[in-house]
């Protein structure tokens, strides 16, 4: 055991610096040495007589999960660890940045800022869930935003990794984790559902939007169980200016049955980054919660609450496959338009769950000159959207499967590649450059995209006429 570590102590060659956290589960120090490429921290679990068994297991879980994930943008890199029986510690990357908790102090936040923070967190979850990891303890103190806006999730002591035996599954007869943000199925001991993280994300977005907690601060298991039947007060009843799309997204994340939530973090990210495309339902417009009678009925049903089965591992990213179709603005080549539509149709039929994002890229508004630029930019934006919708109409896709995006950039290739990376696009379709003034402007894009896109790229070309 390490006896009372303090700044200046040396453990296995690591010299402790400032203590930055002292909690019930662990103490955390910055490391003062040795020098290395990453700023580091050491986390020392509180073990020994009188401490909770979950601390030891949490330490092992953290080591296993972070160790298996290796390096990534959305979780700290594990650098070293000590033996659980003699010198338990974890040395990890220190994540520089502000915690989500810092924003909570300034609630209610403007919707655009909530969307930005939420989309960043959802993308972090995409990376996690894609590796069969479920965090299960998301809360504002466990999310750090790097200066570039990327979200990093920290503290994996309660996480579940589908490739390893879940040591916590048997220990947690009483739900452990933060009760405020905990999903209903977690109360029943379910630990393998990525949609539990989507619930917690919804709870955090609710807090950002209203300054209140969706289910208060339960202090007993009985009060904790209320989320099995009680709706949170609609956001718009607390902050009247909340847009319907935001309420729609947040309340959908907070659905009791995991099957009624977004099926993947990918979809949440997409919804938050294209608010105008969010299909609105009664959820988004709601001004008050369910009536007493409905509540009583739901409470009866909640007694027999059966959590949804966990989705099979490693299929999570596939569940929300996103196919992007790039069209040059004002594409005049009808044969190419038809060929692209055919390719999109094939993708939509081959995978009936995939979604299609229709994209075009226009020069930035700032590059325009003269009076009335803003009005011109808006009109142009709308025209391009109409163009995309028209193009997609014959596909006859339901509205939740297709979205439209007009990106502004003077480098269409780079804009498409960025879009594909940010939204985890799995397949990008674009037209071969051919005739037409606009198509020529789009030319050269193909080669750049094919070379640098982080996904499969198909260059679509109409059959040459004989």
């Amino acid at each position, binding site marked *: 055991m390490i006896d009372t570590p303090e700044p200046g102590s040396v453990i296995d060659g690591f010299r402790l610096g400032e203590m930055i956290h002292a909690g019930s589960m662990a103490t955390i120090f910055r490391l003062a040495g040795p020098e290395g490429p990453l700023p580091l921290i050491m986390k020392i679990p509180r073990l020994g007589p009188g401490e909770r068994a979950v601390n030891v297991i949490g330490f092992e879980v953290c080591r296993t999960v972070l160790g298996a994930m290796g390096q990534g943008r959305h979780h700290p890199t594990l650098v070293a660890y000590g033996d659980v029986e003699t010198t338990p510690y974890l040395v990890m990357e220190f994540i520089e940045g502000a915690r989500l908790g810092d924003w909570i102090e300034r609630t209610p936040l403007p919707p655009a800022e909530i969307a930005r923070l939420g989309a960043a967190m959802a993308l972090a979850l995409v990376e996690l869930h894609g590796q069969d990891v479920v965090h299960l303890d998301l809360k504002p103190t466990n999310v750090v935003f790097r200066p570039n806006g990327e979200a990093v999730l920290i503290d994996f002591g309660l996480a579940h990794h589908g*490739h*390893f035996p879940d*040591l916590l599954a*048997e220990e947690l007869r009483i739900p452990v984790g933060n009760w405020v943000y905990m999903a209903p199925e977690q109360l029943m001991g379910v630990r393998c559902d990525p949609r539990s993280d989507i619930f917690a994300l919804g709870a955090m977005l609710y807090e950002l939007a209203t300054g209140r907690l969706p289910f208060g601060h339960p202090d007993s298991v009985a009060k904790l169980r209320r989320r099995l039947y009680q709706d949170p007060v609609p956001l718009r009843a607390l902050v009247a200016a909340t847009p319907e799309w935001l309420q729609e997204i947040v309340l959908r994340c907070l659905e009791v049955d995991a099957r009624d939530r977004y099926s993947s973090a990918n979809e949440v990210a997409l919804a938050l980054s294209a608010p105008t495309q969010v299909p609105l339902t009664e959820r988004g417009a709601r001004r008050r919660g369910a009536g007493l009678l409905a509540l009583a009925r739901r409470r009866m049903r909640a007694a027999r609450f059966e959590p949804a089965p966990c989705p099979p591992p490693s299929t999570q990213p596939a569940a929300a496959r996103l196919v992007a179709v790039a069209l040059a603005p004002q594409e005049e080549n009808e044969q190419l338009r038809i060929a692209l539509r055919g390719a999109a149709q094939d993708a939509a039929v081959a995978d009936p769950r995939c979604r299609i994002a229709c994209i075009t890229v226009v020069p930035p508004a700032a590059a325009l000159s003269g009076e009335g630029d803003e009005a011109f930019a808006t009109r142009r934006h709308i025209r391009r959207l109409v163009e995309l919708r028209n193009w997609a109409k014959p596909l006859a896709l339901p509205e939740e499967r297709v979205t439209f995006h007009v990106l502004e950039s003077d480098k269409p290739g780079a804009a498409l590649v960025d879009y594909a990376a940010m939204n985890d696009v799995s397949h990008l379709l674009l037209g071969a450059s051919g005739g037409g003034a606009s198509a020529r402007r789009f030319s050269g894009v193909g080669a750049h995209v094919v070379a640098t896109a982080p996904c499969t790229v198909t260059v679509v070309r109409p059959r040459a006429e004989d």
Partner: protein
Amino acid sequence: MGAHRYAFLGDHVGYGADPVAVVELIERYAASGAVVVLGNHDAAAIGRPDDALNRNALAAVAWTRAQLGPKQQSFLASLPLAVADDPILFVHASAAAPEQWIYVTGPREAAESLRAANATYVFSGHVHEQTLYYTGSSGIPMQFRPVPGTPIPVAKHHRWLAIVGSVGQPRDGNNAACYALFDTERERLTYFRVPYDHSSTIRKIRAAGLPDRLALRLERGS
């Protein structure tokens, strides 16, 4: 793979068309220190009656018995039901009553085997699918289906029962052979699946006139 020692968990013969070659191979490993335990099909093949075997298995056992010479028979007869090598116990079926060939197919059977085993790690065969059971403080084992090739930390303050899986006679649609590697120093257990020339095995089973069910199972993987 860097293995320093080998363990063979039983049912060496009774399914395939090369019983003599298999026994001779295992004998050589045993001579250089490998752990070898007896399986129920081996026991039947040396004349110990087993009511639990079905018609196909009995036919295969009768065929196998006729192939084995006295040398192979006496080697199989010398095999123990279990080998304890602290902190590990090797046993073909449940450690609760190894001679009764109880299948460890769920947490309850795993709990009974672990209780009787008095070991931190129990390695078993008998059941054909790779499975790992583990217990913490509460004592109730949890069941886990391992991902081949992923090293699993198996700290010694928990208890572990590993079903290593079978070489041949798969039940999970995958006709690759199963094995596992235990790194005792780093406390890591890795399960593996390795494809082999199962078509030759099928051909030999049919040529030997063994029950076709055995060949079919290899062909289909289930």
